[in-house]
C-alpha cells in the first residue's frame, strides 16, 4: 500500500468539460465524478437550470494536486461555486495514479 493524495472538488455542473480539460492540463491521469446537489455560503449559480453540481475525485501525487490547487485558485474560486478538500489515502498500484511529472 502506498500513500497518495485524494482531492475532491465540488463545483457547478456546467463547468464539467472545462474542469476535466484543466485537470488533464495539470497532469491528472484519472478522475471519478458523481452528480451532486448542494448549498454553500455563496450560492450564486446558474446550475439549478443546468443540473446541479458535480463532485470530482482525483487520486494524484502531491505535485499534481498542488498544480490543481493553483489552477483552481487562478481560474475558478473567484467566479464559480467551488468547494475542494484534500486528504491522504492508501492505494495499491500507486503508479496508475502518478501524474506526468513533465509538468512540475
Amino acid at each position, binding site marked *: 500500500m502506498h500513500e497518495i493524495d485524494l482531492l475532491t472538488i465540488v463545483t457547478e455542473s456546467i463547468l464539467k468539460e472545462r474542469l476535466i480539460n484543466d485537470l488533464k492540463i495539470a497532469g491528472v491521469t484519472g478522475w471519478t465524478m458523481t*452528480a451532486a446537489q448542494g448549498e454553500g455560503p455563496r450560492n*450564486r449559480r446558474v446550475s*439549478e*437550470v443546468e443540473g446541479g453540481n458535480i463532485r470530482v475525485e482525483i487520486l494524484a501525487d502531491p505535485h499534481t494536486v498542488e498544480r490543481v490547487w493553483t489552477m483552481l485558485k487562478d481560474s475558478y474560486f473567484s467566479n464559480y461555486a467551488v468547494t475542494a478538500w484534500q486528504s491522504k489515502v492508501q492505494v495499491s498500484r500507486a503508479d496508475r495514479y502518478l501524474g506526468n511529472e513533465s509538468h512540475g
Partner: protein
Amino acid sequence: MKTRISSLLGVGELNSTVQYDSNVDFGTSLSMATSNVLSVPVLVFLLGVISVRLKADLRLPDPVYQATAIYLLFAIGLKGGVALRASEPADVLLPIVVAIALGIVIPILVFVVLKWMTRLDGIDRGAMAAHYGSTSLVTFTAALVFLDSLDVNYEGFMPTLLTVLEIPGIIVGLLLAKKYASTRSQVEGANSRDSNSRDSISRDWIREVILGKSVLILFGGLAIGFLTGVQGYEQVEPFFGGLFTGVLALFLLEMGVLAGRRLSDIRTAGVGLIVFAVVFPVFAGTLGIISGYLAGLSMGGAMILGVLCASASYIAAPAAVRLALPTANPSITLTSSLGITFPFNLIVGIPIYYLVAQALENWFL
C-alpha cells in the same frame, strides 16, 4: 404557402381551411386571454410556482427534465423542418433575414436601455442582452398552442426563425460585454474584476454558443425534418406530434418551480430591472410584429415573431454567459428572464401580442 403546424400535430385535416374573423371585439379578446390562462400548460406552470410557496417543490427528476427538454427541442425543430420543405424558398428568405437583423438589434437595444434604466455595469448588461437577444422555446411553443386553440393559421417555418434567432443575440450580447470589459481594463488596469473574464472569454464561448447541445438538437431536428419530409414525419407523428402539448405541460411544472424560486429574489432586483423585464418584452414584441408584417408574414406568423423577440432565453444563454462572462451575476439575469419575463409572457404577454398583431393587421395586410 401557409400551413398550420397544428395540422401536423393533429390527426387528420392536413388541408385545414378554417376561417376566422380577425376583427374580433374586445369581449372576444378578453375571452381569448382567459382561455390562454386556463390552458393546461399555463395552469401547470402556476401549480409549479405554488408548490414552491408551499415548500413542496414539484420538480421532475433531473434526468427526466433534461430528456423532456431534448424532446421539445427536437420535436419543434423536426416539425419546422418538415414545414420548411413544404414552403417556397422565396417566402422564407425575407423572414430569415429580418430575424437575423432582429437578433442583432435587440441585444444592442437591451444594452443601451438598461444603461439608463438600471445601475448595472457593462458586464451584467451584456449578459442581459445575451438573454433577451435569444429566445425562449417554451414561450414560443405556448404561443403556438394558443394560436392552434384559436384555429389561427401561421407559417409552418416559424421554428426556422426560432433557430435563426437563438444564436446571434447571445453572440452580440457577449461581444458587447467583452468590448466594455476591455475598454474598462485599459482605463483601470488589469486589477479589475474583469481581468478573469477577459481571459476566459476567448476560450470556450464561441464553441459553447454555436455548438451548445440545445442549438444542436434544434438545428438537427430542423435538418432531419427537412430531409425526411411529411412522409417520414408521419411515422413518428404520434410521438413527436400527438404528445407535444402534454409533454410541454410536464416541462412547465419544472419551469414553474424554477421561476417560483426566483420570485423571492425579485424584491432585491430593483425597480428598474422589474420595469425593464415587463416593459421591454412588450416593446420588443411590437417591434417583432411590425417586422414580421414587413417581411410578409401572416397575422399569426407576425405574432409569433413578436413572441420570439419578446421572450428571453433561460437555457442556452445562461450556460453560454456563465462560461464566457463568469463575473456576470447570474441571479440578476435569471431573476429577470425566468422570474419575471417568462411568467409575464406566458400568462399575459401572449394574449397581448395577439391583440397587438390584430390591431396592426389592417395597416399591413
